[in-house]
């Protein structure tokens, strides 16, 4: 039984991005999802610093100092893309104009509470950036995360232990073991990797899981093909 790679998790999340969706991708694994949108589907990516129509990473030697993404990495603009200033960019985020916000997480609770902005390390100042804005505004808030911590502890919990980014916001979790929907009746497993059982997954998850009747095998391509966004 092999957990998904970061690319495979991003690939799976990208399959749920629909034609015409306006999407914001969080820093880290979510950013990778732009490369795995199925061929022929037009998805428009937003970046908090005022880019609507963000493209893939620039080719070496073609970096533009005026084009950075939310993580301050160099990026590009697709044909049709445009710029807005910060207040309008966060109006887009907060005001329900984005179809999907795909975020990373430290922890998610069974009620869909999200903790992804601080581990309260006293040695460093906290930083929140756009995390709280992104967690309240989009029509669908989905999370990509490793199912457990490095030491094997569950990160999907009854209640988050780290400070919340927003309460009750997460609708779907893509982990390296399963795809789980947060529903009013609790956590519903809709896909699991080959060889995984509900019993085994439950030992790695704190709150009670239920398996939907028509659950599917979660089996992305071994090395998903990277497409230009």
């Amino acid at each position, binding site marked *: 039984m092999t957990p998904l790679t970061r690319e495979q998790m991003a690939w799976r999340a990208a399959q749920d991005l629909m034609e015409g969706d306006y999407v914001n991708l969080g820093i880290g694994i979510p950013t990778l999802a732009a490369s795995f949108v199925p061929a022929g589907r037009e998805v428009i990516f937003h970046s908090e610093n005022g880019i609507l129509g963000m493209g893939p990473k620039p080719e070496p030697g073609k970096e533009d100092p005026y084009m950075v993404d939310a993580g301050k990495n160099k990026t590009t603009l697709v044909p049709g893309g445009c710029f807005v200033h910060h207040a309008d960019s966060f109006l887009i985020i*907060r005001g329900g104009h984005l179809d999907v916000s795909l975020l990373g997480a430290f922890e998610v609770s069974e009620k869909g509470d999200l903790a992804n902005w601080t581990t309260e390390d006293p040695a460093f*100042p906290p930083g929140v950036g756009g995390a709280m804005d992104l967690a309240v505004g989009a029509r669908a808030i989905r999370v990509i995360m490793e199912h457990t911590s490095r030491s094997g502890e569950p990160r999907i919990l009854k209640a988050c232990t780290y400070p919340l980014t927003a309460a009750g916001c997460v609708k779907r979790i893509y982990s390296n073991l399963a795809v789980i929907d947060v529903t009013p009746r609790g956590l519903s497993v809709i896909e699991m990797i080959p060889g995984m059982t509900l019993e085994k997954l439950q030992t790695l998850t704190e709150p009670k899981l239920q398996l939907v009747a028509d659950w599917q095998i979660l089996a992305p391509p071994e090395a998903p093909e990277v497409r230009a966004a």
Partner: protein
Amino acid sequence: MIDKQVKTTADAVAGVRDGSTVLVAGFGAVGVADHLLDALHEQGARELTIVANNSGNGDYGLARLINSGRVRKVICSFPRSGDYSAFLNAYRARSLELELLPQGTISERMRCHAAGLGGFFSPVSAGTKLGEGKETRKIDGRLHVFEKPLKGDVALIKANKADRWGNLTYIKSARNFNPVMAMAADLTVVEVDQMVALGELDPEAVATPSIFVDRVVVVGAHA
């Protein structure tokens, strides 16, 4: 004849008082008025409150102001960006105060001041640590926190082109916080790459109209 252009960056930041709130535009290192920040360092104003998305890099611009002990407080969303050692050292030495705000709350609080409004209720940070102590209200069943307007005494703006009236254009994602900060300060000072003749900027492309601009200085290759 209206002419907002000044000769030097020193002229541009002249008169900034101790204790001022300074709006510093930019996102990471993009769209930051580093020449004006260095001029403000030379000018010597102290006890500054800085409003910025990040907290400066290396030992230039905002980081230099922090290293020289000119900054009393930083209001920002994400201090941990790039080489932020100047901020980190001051933070650890407790020689400056950090007010951490969600990024969109910073920009909207400034927009709110610019718009002459007394504040707004936002769902962002409601029920979280960053919302603690703020007035709350349930609106349509959803918890909101009250956010006050945020005003700058001075805004330091980086634009690409200006005319003598102070109309401004930007380049790509270097626009970021610049237009909203330009609107939200008593004194808006702009560094530009280039001055052009009045009428030469495409009126459809002006992102900050002259009404928000007080002083313009040319820096870099065209100075």
